[in-house]
């Protein structure tokens, strides 16, 4: 497994991975064109790849490019790679990246129907504030 920044060569494999997961994660359309539009300089987009399966995990911190001080965090894991703790590891890695950049908080949105994600984020210290979930780093 390699953890790398999302580059152009990985955009199409990422789109394929995202199209295969449950539709509870949709920060942008899952086409290569939409992903390229969503990737803005200043934000962070990371992927975990394996030789056999390609992109298996995606993580993002975005909002900096648009001037927000608190970035929005998002993580998606390939259905075949679940239950290995990759989501937790990626979230904590993104927290580390945010702290490195001087952030004191990150936020995210969780689908109301996604009890698994809500449970994960609550266990990691997130608290719900109206329509978003906030974590103090």
């Amino acid at each position, binding site marked *: 497994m390699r*953890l790398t920044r999302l580059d152009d060569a990985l955009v199409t494999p990422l789109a394929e991975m995202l199209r295969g997961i449950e539709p509870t994660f949709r920060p942008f359309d899952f086409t290569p064109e939409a992903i390229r539009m969503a990737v803005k300089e200043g934000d962070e987009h990371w992927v975990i790849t394996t030789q056999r399966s390609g992109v298996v995990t995606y993580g993002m911190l975005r909002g900096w490019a648009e001037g927000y001080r608190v970035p929005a965090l998002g993580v998606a894991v390939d259905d075949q790679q679940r239950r*290995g*703790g*990759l989501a*937790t*590891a990626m979230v904590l890695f993104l927290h*580390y990246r945010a702290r490195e950049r001087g952030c004191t908080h990150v936020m995210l949105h969780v689908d109301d129907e996604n009890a698994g994600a809500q449970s994960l984020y609550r*266990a990691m210290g997130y608290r719900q504030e109206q329509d978003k979930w906030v974590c103090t780093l």
Partner: protein
Amino acid sequence: MKVLCLSMWFNDAGKHIADRAVHLLTKPGITRWVWSIRPGRDCTPQFLVALADYAGKTADQASVYVEPEEQPADRIERLSRAGDALLSTVEDEDYVLWHESDLFTPDDLVERLAAIDAAVVGGWPLLSHDQTKSLGIRTQKRMYLEGAIFYDTWGYRKDGTRFKNNPPYHECYREEPFPLDTVGSVALIKADYIRRGARMNGGGMVGLCDSIRQMGGEVWCDPRVPVVQPTELWTMNDD
């Protein structure tokens, strides 16, 4: 009391690395962590650095040592070289806690092992089965051990005979702390022996225990201290 915790990692990114690392980083009594990572294509080093930061540890408190690319073919020889490199990082600590990275132990592990006055004190390694449904950093507080089998039949030895998986394990076994020749998996070691030169010398933890006994140290284990390998953490990496 200063305690240095030493562990090894290899291609662990997809193997509940966060639960395992945070379990070690939050264990009371430990003052420093050094982790050996075998070179691979895996992002284990990046995650470990991030997780140490998450746990509030500075780079001085938690550090990563990447093993040389050139590795011996023999597994025990390879582990021993990495182990000896880790042991050489001992500074002014009172104890070294050898803790395999995929094992879970009680919060009061250090306190319980340090209560026995011996050069090396091991816990009691058990293979868990179906006892925890939601693993995490809180798991060790509700270890359920009934029916679990003893699994470190390689490391635990007495008078040239290895322990067995099931009771009575070995004729020297007692249900309270008892002396033996060698232990493995998780052990608290008096750091003075390491500073005086005790090493694995190609024999892993068995070699280290032999080395310490040659220096006059005693090796004990406390079968009341569970060291659990949760089988539900076993996952397969595809590269």
